[in-house]
């Protein structure tokens, strides 16, 4: 808006500030709580300025977890979460870009049928197929393993669909020019399709990193050993019961740690992410 109306400006700022507070205040409280002792948190009202327990709380959870709930070290959990959040998007991108390449650039019997089969799975949420998936993973002996944590989540209709739509916008002449230039299908894939998909891949990576990091139900089902917990599971395992029994300072420290990697990924890759969603280089 170009209008100069001071009242309106003040009003819109007030709304924005309210919005920021609504989002940021809980985060701030989490941070403050992670720097206090349990007694300070339990006192009413809880102090709203950071305390001096920052190092103690964080080193406690990183190396030894909580004292009353789960005693698994959060450092291990962060590592597990990282494995999940990296393998899932990388696997998804690899599998779906190849699948879409086949669907768009090759003619084979039942091509459309396969595409629609992939597409239809979009309509089934994870929860619907979680029991059969669990059975398969259990029968394969993949419980409490990285493979069990990641492989079932790699197949992705969304990513396949996204790449397919992107490939359809690449002019056919480009494939033909490559053919005249003597590039075989896989050479064309590596030299032309993959570089052109870079921004789409980056956008997908960001979305899927967060998806992988935030997985709750699946790791909860297939991990029973503390050494395989992810950070998100770790938080819930620290909750042991009644409000007073929980070590909120440690839980909040874990929450802060679990929150950092996705936030960092979004911040660092923001430029690429936006580019991938709005711009195509053709």
């Amino acid at each position, binding site marked *: 808006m170009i209008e100069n109306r001071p009242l309106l400006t003040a009003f819109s700022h007030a709304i924005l500030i309210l919005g920021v507070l609504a989002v940021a205040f809980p985060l701030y409280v989490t941070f403050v709580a992670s720097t206090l002792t349990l007694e300070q948190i339990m006192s009413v009202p809880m102090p709203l300025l950071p305390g001096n327990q920052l190092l103690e709380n964080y080193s406690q959870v990183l190396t030894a977890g909580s004292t009353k709930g789960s005693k698994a070290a959060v450092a291990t959990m962060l590592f597990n979460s990282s494995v999940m959040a990296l393998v899932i998007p990388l696997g998804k991108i690899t599998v779906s870009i190849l699948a879409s390449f086949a669907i768009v650039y090759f003619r084979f019997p039942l091509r459309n049928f396969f595409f629609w089969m992939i597409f239809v799975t979009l309509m089934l949420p994870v929860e619907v197929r979680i029991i059969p998936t669990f059975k398969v993973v259990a029968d394969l002996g993949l419980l409490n393993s990285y493979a069990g944590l990641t492989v079932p989540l790699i197949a992705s209709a969304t990513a396949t669909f996204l790449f397919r739509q992107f490939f359809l916008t690449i*002019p056919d*002449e*480009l494939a*033909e*020019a*490559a*053919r*005249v*230039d*003597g*590039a075989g299908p896989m*050479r064309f894939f590596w*030299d*032309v399709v993959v*570089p*052109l998909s870079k921004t789409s891949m980056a956008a997908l990576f960001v979305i899927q990193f967060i998806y992988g990091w935030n997985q709750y139900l699946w790791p909860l089902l297939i991990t029973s050993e503390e050494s395989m917990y992810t950070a998100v599971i770790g938080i819930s395992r620290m909750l042991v019961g009644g409000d007073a029994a929980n070590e909120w300072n440690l839980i909040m420290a874990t929450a802060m740690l679990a929150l950092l990697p996705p936030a960092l990924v979004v911040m660092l890759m923001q430029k690429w992410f936006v580019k991938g969603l709005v711009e195509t*280089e*053709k």
Partner: protein
Amino acid sequence: MATVSLKDVRKSYTPDLQVIHGVSMEIRDGEFIVILGPSGCGKSTLLRMVAGLETITGGEIAIGGRVVNNLEPKDRDIAMVFQNYALYPHMSVYDNMAYGLRIRGLAKSEIDARVQKAAEILELKNFLGRRPREMSGGQRQRVAMGRAIVREPQVFLFDEPLSNLDAKLRVQMRGELQALHRRLGTTSLFVTHDQVEAMTLAQRMIVMNAGRAEQIGAPLEVYARPATTFVAGFIGSPPMNMIPRDGKLLGIRPEHLEPCTESEAAIVAEVDLVEPLGADTLVYGHVSGADGARVAARLPATSRAQAGKLALRYDPANVHWFDAGSGKRIEA
């Protein structure tokens, strides 16, 4: 450099849908051939069959005496320039030109020599590091040509390469293409729907209509003796006038009509549209009389044309006769 021979080339997508109905032609080594026709006539399909981007349903295509029907494009020793240029957007101009050579496994020094030479010819020396999107349409067009030149192919294939350029640039690029062909002497096939391009570039041209070659010949020959009413109507602007006479069609070009006194008139036209173009003036109207066929005439700018009756005459030597049913030329 090589000859290209088409023998009864046919293309159909389904048994019922035939798009090329048997085209035959012998193209000499170093010849510049233009395939001309309206959109949907199959001219691009024919070119793409020579390139190997479309399968050949029937007949035979040979390049340099070698039948290429079942060869991949890369093995046909051709280079193609596409209408939208089809440059690799993420590669620099240099890489765009070098890509095909790298795949062929040429030595780095050889690739560099060829790219530099092509860049020299096309005046792209200062743009080698740029991306296609940082260049204008005319420059991209040149890169596309550069990509074809560095391959040093037997045959150049051009698929309407000038149609995305503005009018002025098109004229300029037309000149450059001619100069390039003189310099390299490579056999070239050039598809276009623009008759001016065809007339100016072609040594010989194929005029196509609905999947058939209506006429093959040198541009002026095609202009002077169109084989069918379609060719007569497609070559020349405004198109040749067709006036029914004695069960046949009398064809006379607008530029062969001249104003005269009413007593000498061969045609009397009811003029309803006058277009002064500066150099000359176009008048449109219809023949007075029962059938009222449309006529156009190109008159000198000095003649004061206006709407109303206009007496026109022509030299009988400039008249063409066509069969009213088949549209074929009737030789006098």
